[in-house]
């Protein structure tokens, strides 16, 4: 039962093939049996079973809340569920209890969703391998000596190994797409502002975005339908109705399109599953022009997918993105540490989280000691590195040279993407230049780790939506044939999630 897709679960619950309680028990049992993968930080057994029972009684009386009523989901551990521990993968929040629900959680609770547990992640989402988690690394289900990617590695691994049918993650520079690619599942980063971030623990606020993981493109589209929308608690969130492309392209009435409302409200303006069967005939696709010196098989699969899309009638043209990608990565590693250093200031040993005040190991003489030592003790190496780097680029004398220059570069990058989208519907790249790397392979060398995000980071810089869809598998050198997944990234115009999911669904069919 546990290898079912979200869509199959929705249909199965509706048709009475199984109950939410049976399903939930199955997933919790599977999660318990596969503890070695370390995909969950906290399993929410009691909450999940309770929610499942309630859902089953609602269904008996014909009062289901939505199509997702009784559907179990996993949630990345930087998204708050009221009354339960939320750690963000950090020691400093090891014992932190969420005081309220994130808006996405509120919306999914109203839809009747069952929460299985909170998934592992790089500390405060800073990392590309889930190795910086205070709770130990998650392992890649396809090869347990390799990383699942990151930072949402726990969510990706849980979905890939059927410990949850789908999951929520967050993506600041690839943290949904890259682990989706490494684990062979679908991961979508919506347009910046599509999904409310109220109750998401902030990393880099001008880039952070919540999005869905699923086994299929359709599953991520279904989940997206339930979490988009404007939220007064997040001033950067956007209205549900599409702005950049008209309702006619989805075949909806104007009346539908004008209905906004809170996330997860009775009717959002858009159905992201609407274009999935439309194919790619006549679409104009820009694809990354790249001949890497070394290819582990990623680019071979990328080019095979391109050829298959051409056969289906897409017009595919190679575009040189080298300068754009290179500059975007540099820009990212200025903006992110800058925003991190500011966002992390709230962890001070005073308001909540780990504090040295009650730790007998420490002698505290002043308020300053509380700050210095609580942060030193509670935060991990990558977080500290980014705080120091961010403090540097924001400090007087360096602000113009780094932070201000990065903002200029960001404008330039947005402009370059806009130019490409004047001519093309979507852009294709591999999600990551390589398949999943080995545990500890890049941990000691931050710059090499950062470079593995070269294809995903620019999308956040430009606020665009992108989805990673499995394109095939390759074998490690000298290893088992074809067990390591390769993800294909489809990038779209702002608010054009429908189009990237349409192309993603075609990749799924032809691969």
């Amino acid at each position: 039962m546990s290898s079912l897709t979200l869509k199959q679960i929705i249909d199965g619950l509706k048709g009475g093939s199984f109950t939410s309680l049976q399903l939930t028990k199955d997933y919790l049992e599977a999660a318990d049996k596969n503890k070695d993968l370390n995909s969950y930080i906290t399993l929410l057994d009691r909450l999940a079973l309770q929610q499942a029972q309630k859902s089953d009684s609602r269904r008996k009386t014909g009062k289901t809340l939505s199509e997702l009523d009784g559907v179990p989901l996993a949630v990345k551990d930087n998204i708050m569920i009221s009354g339960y521990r939320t750690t963000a993968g950090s020691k400093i929040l090891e014992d932190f209890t969420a005081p309220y629900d994130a808006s996405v959680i509120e919306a999914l609770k109203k839809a009747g969703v069952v929460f299985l547990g909170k998934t592992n992640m790089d500390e405060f989402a800073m990392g590309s391998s889930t190795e910086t988690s205070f709770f130990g690394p998650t392992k890649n289900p396809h090869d347990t000596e390799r990383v699942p990617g990151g930072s949402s590695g726990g969510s990706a691994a849980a979905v890939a190994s059927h410990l949850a049918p789908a999951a929520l993650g967050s993506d600041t520079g690839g943290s949904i797409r890259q682990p989706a690619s490494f684990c062979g599942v679908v991961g979508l980063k919506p347009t910046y502002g599509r999904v409310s971030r109220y109750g998401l623990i902030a990393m880099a606020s001008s880039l952070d975005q919540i999005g869905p993981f699923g086994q299929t493109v359709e599953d991520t589209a279904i989940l997206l339908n339930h979490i988009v929308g404007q939220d007064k608690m997040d001033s950067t969130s956007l209205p549900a109705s599409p702005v950049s492309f008209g309702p006619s392209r989805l075949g909806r009435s104007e009346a539908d399109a004008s209905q906004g409302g809170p996330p997860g409200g009775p009717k959002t303006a858009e159905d992201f599953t609407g274009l999935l069967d439309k194919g790619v005939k006549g679409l104009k696709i820009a694809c990354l022009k790249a001949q890497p010196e070394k290819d582990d098989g990623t680019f071979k699969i990328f080019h095979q997918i391109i050829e298959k899309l051409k056969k289906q009638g897409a017009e595919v043209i190679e575009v040189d993105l080298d300068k754009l990608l290179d500059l975007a990565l540099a820009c990212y590693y200025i903006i992110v540490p800058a925003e991190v250093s500011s966002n992390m200031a709230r962890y001070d040993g005073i308001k909540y989280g780990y504090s040295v005040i009650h730790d007998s190991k420490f002698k505290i003489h002043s308020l300053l000691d509380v700050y210095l030592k609580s942060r030193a003790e509670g935060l991990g190496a990558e977080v500290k590195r980014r705080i120091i780097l961010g403090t540097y680029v924001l400090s007087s004398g360096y602000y113009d040279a780094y932070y201000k220059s990065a903002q200029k570069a960001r404008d330039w990058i947005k402009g370059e993407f806009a130019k490409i989208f004047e001519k093309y519907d979507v852009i294709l790249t591999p999600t990551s230049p390589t398949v999943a790397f080995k545990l500890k392979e890049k941990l000691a060398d931050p710059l090499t780790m950062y470079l593995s995000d070269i294809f995903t980071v620019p999308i956040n810089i430009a606020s665009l939506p992108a989805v990673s869809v499995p394109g095939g598998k390759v074998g490690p050198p000298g290893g088992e044939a074809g067990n390591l997944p390769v993800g294909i990234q489809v990038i779209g115009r702002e608010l054009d999630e429908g189009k990237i999911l349409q192309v993603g669904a075609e990749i799924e069919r032809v691969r």
Partner: protein
Amino acid sequence: MTKISKQEIDHLAQLARLELSPAEKALYRQHLAEILGYVEKVQKVKDTEKTKPALKNVVSADKVEESKAKAEDLLAGAPEKQDGYIKVRAIL
């Protein structure tokens, strides 16, 4: 290549309210130099005409509303508190 002196790393740690061990300081001096060396290419970007203003103000009505979180839950995580306040060490 940008070099980060020992004094600079001390100053940054102080600004960031972060106590660093000598080993951490040495490591971060090296990493900062490497990362700054990589990212300084952004300085070559010339002024661009903005396609559209990236920022706008979003304000909400000046109206008291029920909070989604209760004060006692928000205070529950504070290590030292008294009478509904968070307690800190005297700074004067």
